[in-house]
């Protein structure tokens, strides 16, 4: 009885196993995040297949798991994934490991026009004088989303003016922003800011906005660590102030998911986040409480954190698969396909898409988005960027919960960066 069941199960297993064998022709396989961007491209894949006969399969995994799975494939042997989607935080690590093909020869051979690709995106993704390891795919730079209805509320405006002597308007400096956020939490009946304070990527990304807008930076033009500065300390002090007096309860364990839901529920005045969160919030079906009442601006102070994803071709695959991968990259990043993607809501990396009339007609806020991308600065991109996010994130978390004073936290963060750069 047991044997029969085993036999049936065994043949089932064998059938499933053999069906995963490679199909005829080339199939491009990529690990992708499960985000709207991926869906937009996926919907267009049949066009690509019809044009080139190359099949493309997207396997969707979460961000952290994606990194670990990819690294295992790239370290040795032949990578199962022959088309790579690479986050900017890995744009130091992957080239350092020698895992990515230089795309310059491919660009030259097929005459791909690199001029419209936004330079800050190229730099973000590891372009050097000698190599182009990653072709930008989409960007996720950060700005401030805020509630226009709360700003326009006359009662609140009166209270604010009485308390501070200033008019209630979208903040343009960091100090204004902090004061306004604290006001809203104290007197406005909403949280001042939905903050993603969980240690690691969430708080490192958010803090970077404060740092850049306070006039500070991680590295100077010579890649020397300049985090330990008055601006750095000011940024952390303001950040801690926000966490304590303007942010939601539990901010120190909050991630993007939490802040998005909070903002969507109408329980926060503002949120420093990736700019394409705006369409998610300004959506009558998903967020009825705030649809039509939100807008985005550059991070008060003028500089937000840049981010983005790009395409790469692994070195450890056969040549014909590399060519197929390039064909895909060329197609998906062409102006034509990029505009089509943008019309679906994708976040462009080409300046000609940001200024395309059809795109601007459909999404007027892309004008602000264009500014955000152009003015964005970057978290240090090098081999150990993810580890630095952990180091920095720990210090910020310790400081925000009062366990470490600002000075010590900034010093430790700066030293951590120096140590990792030297590693």
């Amino acid at each position, binding site marked *: 009885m*047991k044997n029969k*069941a*085993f036999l049936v*199960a*065994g043949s*089932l*297993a*064998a059938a*499933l*196993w053999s*069906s*995963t064998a490679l199909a005829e022709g080339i199939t491009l*396989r990529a690990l992708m*995040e*499960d*985000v*709207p961007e991926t869906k937009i491209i996926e919907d267009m894949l049949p066009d690509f297949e019809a044009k080139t006969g190359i099949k493309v*399969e997207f*396997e*969707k*995994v*979460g*961000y952290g*798991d994606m990194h*670990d*799975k990819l690294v*295992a494939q790239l*370290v*040795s*042997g032949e990578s*199962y994934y022959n088309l790579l989607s690479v986050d900017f935080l890995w744009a130091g690590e992957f080239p350092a490991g020698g895992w990515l093909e230089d795309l310059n020869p491919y660009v030259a051979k097929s005459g791909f026009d690199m001029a419209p690709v936004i330079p800050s995106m190229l730099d973000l993704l590891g372009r050097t004088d000698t190599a182009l390891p990653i072709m930008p795919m989409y960007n996720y730079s950060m700005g401030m989303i805020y509630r226009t209805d709360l700003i326009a509320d006359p009662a609140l405006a009166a209270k604010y003016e009485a308390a501070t002597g200033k008019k209630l308007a979208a903040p343009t400096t960091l100090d204004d922003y902090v004061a306004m956020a604290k006001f809203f939490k104290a007197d406005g009946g909403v949280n001042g800011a939905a903050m993603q304070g969980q240690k690691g990527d969430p708080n490192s990304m958010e803090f970077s906005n404060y740092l850049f807008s306070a006039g500070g930076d991680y590295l100077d033009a010579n890649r020397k660590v300049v985090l330990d500065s008055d601006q750095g300390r000011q940024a952390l002090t303001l950040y801690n102030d926000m966490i304590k007096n303007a942010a939601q309860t539990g901010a120190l364990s909050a991630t*993007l*998911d939490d802040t*998005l*839901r909070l903002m*969507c*529920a109408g329980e926060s005045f503002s949120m420093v986040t990736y700019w394409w969160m705006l369409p*998610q919030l300004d959506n009558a*079906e*998903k*967020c009825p409480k705030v649809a039509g009442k939100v807008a985005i601006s550059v991070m008060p102070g003028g500089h937000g954190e840049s981010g983005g994803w790009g395409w790469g071709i692994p070195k450890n695959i056969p040549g014909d698969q590399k060519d197929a991968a390039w064909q895909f990259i060329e197609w998906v990043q062409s102006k034509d396909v990029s505009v089509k993607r943008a019309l679906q809501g994708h976040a462009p990396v080409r300046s000609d898409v940001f200024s395309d009339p059809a795109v601007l007609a459909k999404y007027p806020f892309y004008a602000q988005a264009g500014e955000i991308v152009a003015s964005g600065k970057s978290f240090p991109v090098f081999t150990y960027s993810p580890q630095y996010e952990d180091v920095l994130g720990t210090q910020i978390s310790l400081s925000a919960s009062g366990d470490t004073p600002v000075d010590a936290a900034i010093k430790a963060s700066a030293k951590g960066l120096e140590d990792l750069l030297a590693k």
Partner: protein
Amino acid sequence: MLRRAISHIGLIIACLSVLLPILWVFRTSLVPEHASYSTDIFPELTLENYRLLFGDKNFGTNYANSLIVATLSVVLSMPFAAMTGYAFARFRTGGRIARFATLASQMLPPVALALPVFMLYRAAGLTNSLTGLTLIYAAINLPFLTWILMGFFESIPEDLEGAAMTDGATRWGAFWRIVLPVAAPGILASAVLGFILSWNEFLFALILGGSKTATVPVALAALQTSNGVQISQVSAGVSLAILPLLIAVHFIQKYLVQGLSFGSVK
């Protein structure tokens, strides 16, 4: 009488602490994503989450994969576990070293084994296959199941087999026909446990598998997107994921919970 009442009360409290979160999960599976955190019990009823899971996300395949791999890995490892557990219990085979070495293989955090297993399996052609996954799960189950069965065999007095053997049975015969039936509760508990261990395993399924061989835990983990957690779909997935255990427990519980009237129940 009083003891029974107190037991009922205690069990009800325990059941509520288990059931309430699970019921809330089930409720969330029937609510659209944007209303998932609403405090109303049913802000909107929908089957959208289940439809999305099975339609867009291929959950049906994941579920089938999990079922196949979990079942086969138990079927594969149980005989070995029973025999080795018996040897450890009866004959102290290999002494303390063998016992602890067996268990020690499980003391290493799986993350340290991820890369070695991946490289070895890739060389053997076992990646992206349910066969490979079944094999590694059987190997993961083996130490725990061996130890659990060892414990059960130790509680069975050796006289039972002794009597059978003086009557002419071989050691194997005594094992098969006398010891195993008496150890039935332990065997059933181990089978359920082995199934659960494989059903819930995540890291190896992630590293060794591809999109066609993804299991339920991998599918659920992928619902943590950079756009937020699709908690309603996660809830739907979890509601479905507990079904096999529910069914298994229903069938075996009479072997596990019955026959406990040793004079303490009056």
